[in-house]
């Protein structure tokens, strides 16, 4: 139950992108996203350029475009607001297909949509080519505070355990004739969530006990040392370097 899906986002492979050390990829994606965000929204061609760069990465990583497209759907709830902007923003109005839309709002929507999508696609590619475990090692290597990395690691380990527990509670509710039919069901669901929280909390205490019993003193022992060669850093830098050329051109053209 729930087991076997731990690496839902990861596509195992052996491409040059897969082989790059995780911290190099993390830095590359972060730099790329910053460059995209720093690009003036009026330079529409620049965003096309970024998209071409990401397509090149996807090709090199042998991640099918269809997979990327399916996963980009995750951004829909976040950009829904962007689609409202042309209707509710004030300022100059233009007529598009018989609708009177705000020009500012249109630019704003385009800005969020383009930059958001590029950022999501870059993250999807990172997740597809890097095991979650390696991402954590990369974060640790980049000196993200240990505590944060540990918390993320426990989420990774116990996500399935908690999901399975939730599943068992759902089965137990349904077996006794419960159906979430209308708003009156919220009370029951809220109590289930409360129970799940308590159970997870108690499990946390038991896990801590098991850790202390094996000599844990607040620091996780470092079991892996992942290093990166200058060649690997250079390879990872290809994406942000190419993107920075696009960004520079976009600014100089202004």
């Amino acid at each position, binding site marked *: 139950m729930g087991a076997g899906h731990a690496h839902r986002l990861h596509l195992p492979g052996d491409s040059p992108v897969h082989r790059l050390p995780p911290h190099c990829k993390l830095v590359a994606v972060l730099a790329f996203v910053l460059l995209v965000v720093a690009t003036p929204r009026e330079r529409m061609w620049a965003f096309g350029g970024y998209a071409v760069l990401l397509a090149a990465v996807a090709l090199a990583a042998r991640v099918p475009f269809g997979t990327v497209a399916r996963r980009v759907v995750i951004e829909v709830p976040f950009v829904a607001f962007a689609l409202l902007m042309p209707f509710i923003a004030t300022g100059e109005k233009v007529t598009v297909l018989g609708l009177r839309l705000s020009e500012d709002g249109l630019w704003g929507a385009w800005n969020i949509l383009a930059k958001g999508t590029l950022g999501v696609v870059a993250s999807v590619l990172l997740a597809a080519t890097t095991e979650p475990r390696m991402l954590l090692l990369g974060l640790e290597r980049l000196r993200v505070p240990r505590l944060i990395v540990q918390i993320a690691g426990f989420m*990774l*380990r116990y996500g399935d*355990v908690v999901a399975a527990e939730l599943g068992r509670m759902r089965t137990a509710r349904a077996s006794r004739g419960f159906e979430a039919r209308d708003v009156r069901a919220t009370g029951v669901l809220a109590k289930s969530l409360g129970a799940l929280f308590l159970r997870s909390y108690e499990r946390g205490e*038991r896990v801590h006990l098991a850790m*202390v*019993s*094996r000599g844990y003193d607040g620091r996780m*022992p470092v*079991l892996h040392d992942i290093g990166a060669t200058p060649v690997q850093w250079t390879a990872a830098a290809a994406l942000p370097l190419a993107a920075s050329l696009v960004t520079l051109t976009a600014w100089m053209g202004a």
Partner: protein
Amino acid sequence: MTPSLDVRGLAYAYPDGTQALFGVDLTIGRGERVALLGPNGAGKTTLVLHLNGILHGGLGEVRVGGLAVDPGDRAALREVRRRVGIVFQDPDDQLFMPTVREDVAFGPANLGLRGAELDARVRSALDRVGMAHAADRPPQHLSFGQRRRVAVATVLAMEPEILVLDEPSSNLDPASRRELAEILLGLDVTVLMVTHDLPYAAELCPRSVILSGGVIAADAPTPDLLADAELLRAHRLELPFGFDPAAARR
């Protein structure tokens, strides 16, 4: 020879006032396998958590291989936690690292082992429970029986003086239960096994003690103890239907 475990006059009350232990005396010699039996609420878990100093502050004394458990002395406590290997009941509590190998390495790495020495320790611990093939798998992808075996390996990797197992047979199917028994019988280590599973105690432990009402109520060879129907009934212990304690005498 120094006993593996020596508990004298151990008494403990939880902070809310509930008294769980009323003066426990228990000595386990090196290489012995002892079953700790007792009804729910008898104080079994409380006793176990005293063995490596997680609970403390009551009366009495615990010595592991001659070393006193003293929560004030950090270095000694670290050594005590190496010497006492507790395998908790739910392997999901015990296995918290992303892969089996890292989980088994957690304990010895906390003891300061690194590199080839650490790898060798992990490999030998996994070999002893027959799980070396799963070293790179995440624990959540293993069967329950396999996870329990890995949980045993995580403490074996610390080369403990005494292995403490909390309900080792719970939730195991009969085949996993037998496999675990074979592994435990093959280990050359002192064992204290907390259990309700009396046939399992008969199979694995020549000696049993009953903890009841916070004191050791009986301490005898397991077959004798299981043959005493009066004693078992007095402490809410029952043999499963059809089990003949005489069959346990071999």
